């Protein structure tokens, strides 16, 4: 095992930086109108995005150079702290409830969402556990114990409720199970149970059922359930090959909801056309290619699983986000990594990239 440091993966770095840049520009374009209306400042969201991106880049550089092995000792403690935070956020009076979801902790304007930490925490936790005992995942009991941990996290997230993070966490964990060598029968069983679980969740909450109706029949329900999907398709459809020009989006005039967060991809499609959309998807392709490549050539199992998890966070979120925007999936509430306005989540995504870049320095290829 070589500990000689190399140059970090430059492609991954540049890809991330490009996505981040596109994001900053598009956040400004998408948000300036309503920022002006509601905050009297068209740069309200841009300012914050730049701040978090700046903080994120600093963190990225820090984790790029920080010896991630030193974190290994802190993983269990960190994971437990994360679980505590997830519990705290649910307690009325401690967690801040916005629009029916208890997602925030903090005082005044200093708030953060434990959901963001949980993605990193579970990746670290599983990477550590699965690399310490390589055979555990292969037997049914071992597989169940991982599932139990995942189940606790998922349950806590659903209680907020935060469907988006739940899906991201579950998807990422599933990728790690595959990579770690879980049995195919177990994986299929889990997938099947997962589908049943999702159906159960849908039936349980009427608003989720509405989302499904809106997904299946967006134009028939364009004034209620299908509204977001329809407005998103309107934006994309207006773009054609070259788009209607940067800053010229019409759908951003309050038609498209979550225009600078979950649906920013639609604004890209509207303003920059297929060219812009293709570029963004291409960048994500490059990102996951480099990310999984780092996993392949990682110096050890822990680093490899860590890289799989960190890359999968981005892969799962980007695929689901674009799937939602294009009406291919029901609306879930997942942002587009690096691009969407996201506050602290952007910083955490960049920390993830920093760790990935860090691993890439130890790759043997």
């Amino acid at each position, binding site marked *: 095992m070589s500990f000689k440091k190399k140059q970090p993966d430059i492609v991954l770095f540049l890809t991330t930086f490009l996505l981040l840049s596109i994001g900053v520009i598009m956040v400004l374009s998408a948000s300036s*109108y309503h920022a002006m209306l509601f905050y009297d400042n068209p740069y309200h969201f841009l300012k914050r995005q730049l701040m978090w991106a700046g903080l994120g880049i600093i963190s990225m550089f820090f984790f790029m150079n920080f010896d991630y092995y030193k974190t290994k000792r802190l993983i269990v403690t960190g994971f437990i702290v994360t679980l505590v935070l997830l519990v705290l956020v649910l307690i009325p009076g401690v967690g801040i409830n916005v629009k029916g979801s208890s997602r925030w902790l903090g005082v005044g304007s200093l708030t953060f969402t434990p959901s963001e930490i949980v993605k990193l925490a579970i990746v670290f936790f599983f990477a550590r556990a699965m690399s310490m005992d390589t055979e555990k995942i292969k037997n049914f009991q071992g597989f169940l114990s991982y599932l139990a941990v995942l189940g606790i996290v998922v349950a806590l997230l659903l209680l907020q409720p935060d469907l988006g993070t739940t899906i991201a966490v579950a998807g990422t964990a599933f990728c790690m199970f595959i990579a770690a*060598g879980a049995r195919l029968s177990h994986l299929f069983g889990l997938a099947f149970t997962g589908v049943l679980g999702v159906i159960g969740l849908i039936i349980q909450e009427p608003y989720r059922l509405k989302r499904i109706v809106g997904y299946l029949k967006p134009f028939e329900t364009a004034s209620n359930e299908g509204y977001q999907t329809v407005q998103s398709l309107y934006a994309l459809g207006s773009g054609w090959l070259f788009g209607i020009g940067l800053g010229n989006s019409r*759908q951003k*005039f309050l*038609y498209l909801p979550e225009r600078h967060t979950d649906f920013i991809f639609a604004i890209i499609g509207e303003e920059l056309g297929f060219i812009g959309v293709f570029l963004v*998807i291409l960048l994500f392709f490059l990102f*996951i290619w480099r990310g999984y490549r780092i996993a392949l050539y990682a110096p050890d199992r822990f680093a490899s699983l860590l890289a799989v998890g960190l890359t999968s966070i981005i892969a799962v979120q980007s695929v689901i986000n674009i799937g939602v925007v294009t009406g291919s999936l029901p609306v879930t509430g997942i942002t587009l990594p690096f691009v969407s306005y996201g506050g602290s989540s952007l910083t955490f995504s960049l920390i993830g990239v920093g760790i990935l870049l860090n691993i890439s320095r130890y790759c043997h290829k």
Partner: protein
Amino acid sequence: MVSVTMKKRISFIFLTSALLLGLLVVRTAWIQFVMGKELQAKAIDSRLRNIDVKAKRGIIYDRNGSPLAISVSADSVYAVPSQVRRSNRIDEIVNALSQVLELDKEEVRDKLNKKVAFQWIKRRVSDEKIKQLKELDLPGINFVEENRRYYPKGKLAAHILGFAGIDNQGLNGIELTYDKELRGVSGKIMIEYDAAGREIPNAMHQYIPPVDGHSLYLTIDETIQYIAERELDQVMKIKQAKRGTIIVLDIKTGDILALANRPVFDPNNFADYDQGTWRNIAISDAYEPGSTFKTITAAGAMEENVVKPTDRFYDPGYIKVGKETVKCWRSYRPHGSQSFVEGVQNSCNPVFVTVGLRQGKDRFYKYLEGFGFGQKTGIELPGEATGILVPKSRAKDIDLATMSIGQANAVTPIQLIRAVAAIANDGWLMKPQLVKEIRDYDGKLLKKIEPEPVRQVISKNTSEELRAILETVVSEGTGKNAYLEGYKVAGKTGTAQKILPGGGYSSNEYIASFIGFAPADHPRIAALVIVDSPQGVYYGGQVAAPVFKNVVLDTLRYLEVPPEITGEAKFMEEKIIVPDVKNKKINIVTKELKSLGLKVQVEGQGDKVIIQLPPAGSQVIKGSTTILYTQDENSDQVVVPDLTGRTIKEASIILSELGLEMAPQGSGLAVIQEPQPGSKVDKGTSVRVKFLSPNEEHHEETIGP
């Protein structure tokens, strides 16, 4: 080192992710390229809010191009309620709107609290109030120009024009029947708004201009209509009648030159009038025509040769029909022995009953139907009635007898005048016309409506014979009060007892009428005068005939129909043809005319002749005066000409050439005018001119049997 299995699995994850991203690329391309155009159209559609721009409703002109119904624009006030609410000034806005527009505060507040994108506050508001509101600059309160229908002549021809509602939709009269042509096609202003109803920066504006409605040129002649209305007003006033109708028809073409009813309404504010006044009784109400119908009985009988003008009849004051007796109107002093012509002159019931019975049922009904009774005339107005005929299958001799004298059957005034016009028109029944031309907004002719002959009911011969007989009704018989100086008139009086609503005849309410045409030898116009329930004397010859005379005399003069007979011998004198001096310099013209032996009178202070009287080409006696009207072209002011001695037609030409309006009063020749001749007024000023008939002093109301 990472195990081979793990490498395979990582590769699998990567490939799956890449595949999914690839599918998303395809999906996006599908949305953008295949569904794109449709989605974009829908997106634009969802962002645009439409404001309708109403087309300008077409103008309705009389046959000479004088406007009878026009569209004027006025601003309307509307609110975008969400903008008002967002301004947080709703109380202030409610107060301002209710104060300026004189509206109830709560009503305004309710309107502003509605969850709509567009809400009218008040339509068609005066300029002054709009100015006040615009100065207040209230958020969310906007203005849009709308057209309002305006009838510049007020009640004139109200029943023909009908009226249009607040949304410029034709509701009655020609406005309704020609609504499609007049309405035009609405345009749109489309403005892009944000999802909350705010106009967005660099918003897309689309303007689809409205296509203005077509203009109609009616067959109505404003001047003749005016004459009819004037005479109708007068008789209604003097006789304190309940209702009245005058129709003037062009015999050759079927053109309706005038149609007036009383009671009447002002189409400018039709809603303020009782709905009953909207009713066009000339076409919607059937009545028993009485003796005026005897013209039809005579026409059929003569055409079928069952009677000759010289046939002798004896009137004992009544006639027996089976077991029933039909009395003559003058049974107290029977007409005794008389020829058919005298019988017509006397309007003798037994004569017509005899003639009717001679025809028999089949032939009688042939002419009833031939002349168009019991059928709609097809006049282009809403609500035409068919009238009620005694069903042929049920008609007995007594029905035939009463029908022959104009009872038992109910006809509409328009049916009657059309039938009588056919008698005058060599037997040709015409479709009554109201519209001559349809032109588009730029004046391009779209459709010319030609006279429409329906059928020939009687021969030319019969027509001529009957015309001569009817002329004697006026010269010798019951219609003497319709006698016109200078013209031969044919006509027939009518006095019918009104039918009570429950059936039976009223003992004290009558319908006095006169129908006729002139000149009798070469008929030009037919006119029908009906006075419903006159007080005092109620005979058609006394009540309706003088009205008929005034209407027809003024109309013939206005139409410049040359008088046929004159009481004075004409001296042979040297005639001079007046040269055309229009648009020439006044000093040159004066010399030219003087050298021809004409006197010259100059009106106005311009140096160019704009009107000459008599017109170029007229033959005048040497030494007579030519009047030259001049105008300074560069001024908006004109000098009021001296109109003394001018006919209505002459005065109206002179004034309109000068750019002035005329408000005529009376009939005959001009005697007094206001403003005075020589005074300077703005173009468009209305000059009141009083006309007096030259024989006014001899004209008196005849009262008596």
